[in-house]
């Protein structure tokens, strides 16, 4: 009986993976547009580093700046894919008009989130690798001294945190049928500003630095730079990775509680209806 219930939940989780893969296939034109947008964005930011000597008229270690910016751009690319895939799971359903059918199906919300997260991680990895492959053709990226294992560890630890943040942001389209999706963009923009993606957080105003230190992305990006640029040993990153995973699990738990509360509110207020 219990094993049947597990199989049923696994099928439920896979429904979201398969559905999202089908959405990519059917909206391939959009995917191409977003890939080009992300790629040109990463290239444009990295070219700022490449042109730093020309901009300042001073001798600068351009290779170091390029690496710094490129790692930031790629990791942000990956983390933002995770964040958007999860935070937009409600917005997509609203847009397609299927939200009521998904919410009346006998699938628990954690199963819904597991399916969405599995897809998000797979999609984020493939997309980021594709951008890395193309960007590598424009810049010479020497990763010979990099600690790839440590980088993978940091990336997985950071994924847990961003899953939690995505769940928290996913309540916005549930609460605000018309403006919720745009609000998730604002959340992502603030994370980008404060997390040291393209500059050290020490350059931020003093009052913003404590907020920057509370963003999990700050530690993921710092850790990734340490691994990929400085080749820092994995064991020295274990405590940061552990902290990221632990804090991520706490944020996921909070996100699930908030989501459940907001879902109940939406059902009371009649906000699940496709147009709100």
């Amino acid at each position, binding site marked *: 009986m219990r094993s049947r219930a597990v*199989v*049923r*939940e696994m*099928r*439920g989780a*896979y*429904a979201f993976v*398969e*559905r999202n893969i*089908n*959405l990519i296939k*059917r*909206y391939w034109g959009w995917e191409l547009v977003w890939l080009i947008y992300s790629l040109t964005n990463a290239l444009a930011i990295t070219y700022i580093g490449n042109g730093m000597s020309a901009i300042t008229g001073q001798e600068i270690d351009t290779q170091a700046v390029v690496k710094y910016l490129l790692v930031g751009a790629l990791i942000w690319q990956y983390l933002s894919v995770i964040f958007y895939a999860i935070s937009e799971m409600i917005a997509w359903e609203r847009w*397609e*008009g*299927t939200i*009521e*059918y*998904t*919410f*009346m*199906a*006998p*699938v*628990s919300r954690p199963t819904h989130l597991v399916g969405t997260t599995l897809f998000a991680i797979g999609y984020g990895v493939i997309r980021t690798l594709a951008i890395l492959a193309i960007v590598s053709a424009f810049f010479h990226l020497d990763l010979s001294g990099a600690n790839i294992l440590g980088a993978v560890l940091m990336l997985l630890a950071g994924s847990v945190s961003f899953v939690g943040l995505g769940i928290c942001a996913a309540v916005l389209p549930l609460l605000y049928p018309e403006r919720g999706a745009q609000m998730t963009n604002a959340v992502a923009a603030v994370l980008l500003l404060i997390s040291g993606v393209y500059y050290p957080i020490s350059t931020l105003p003093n009052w913003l630095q404590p907020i920057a230190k509370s963003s999990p992305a700050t530690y993921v990006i710092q850790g990734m730079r340490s691994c990929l640029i400085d080749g820092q040993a994995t064991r020295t990153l274990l405590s940061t990775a552990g902290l990221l995973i632990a804090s991520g699990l706490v944020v996921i738990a909070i996100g699930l509680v908030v989501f459940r509360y907001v879902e*109940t509110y939406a*059902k*009371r*207020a*009649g906000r*699940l*209806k*496709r147009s709100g």
Partner: protein
Amino acid sequence: MCTVALEVERVRKTFTRKQGVPRSAGKHAIFKHKKKEEVVALKDIDLLIPKGETFGVLGPNGSGKSTLIRLASTLLLPDFGALRIFGHDVEHEPYAVKRLINRVSVDAAFFKKFSPIENLMYAARLYGMSLSEARPKMRAIMKRLGLKESTFTQPMEHMSRGMQQKVAVARGFLTSPILLLLDEPTTGLDPHSKREVQAFVREIRETHDTTVLLTTHDMEEADRLCDRIAIIDDGKIVALDKPDGLKAMVPAQNGDKTTMEDVFIALTGRTFEDAEAEKVVVA
């Protein structure tokens, strides 16, 4: 197994709507204060639908039919009262309820770029069905509903409204619900598609152990398909009986047979059109 498919006990549902009102009458007024307005969709409704019955809820747009279906579907929570499906409380045991029901709504909501097979596969997986179980079943139901095999893999957005609604009926029945909630399943369909969907509903009733709750504003449809009919107006049930029992309430005039429309007019003092014109859609 409980012999009562759906029990609705003193259910009340109110929605709050906000309407923006300009602070000033000036043409540059940007900020608006929101005026809250309460709309009572259901007013202390009681219903008891035994297992195996096809039960109709007949009423004009905005009378509360869809609200009742959404409450039974676990998509809304009542403000007061309780709904039980085969003994399971909709509010407190939603997962047990969800495994027993499915719903077809007036708008065939699908992933528009997906094919019927892709949409039905998604639904089947959500209900825990295996590929081997779902594939032959979805094909058989779609064929029975008159859909051609060549349409099974084409995007839904290229299909007519009637064809989309047939896929919606297939999705509703694919998971073998023991309570099927049909919310105006034939509204907007051409007469041929309408007849095919109605024939399928009758077939479900004759060949399966399925209870059907059908809401409609098509009086002829309610008369033809339902064992009993509740007439709902302005969130209240104004009459509930077998179709013949309802018609017997109103004496025939000028030698013509009494229709459901005559019954509605006699009970509410309005025609369906009048009732719809008066009512702002609430659900």
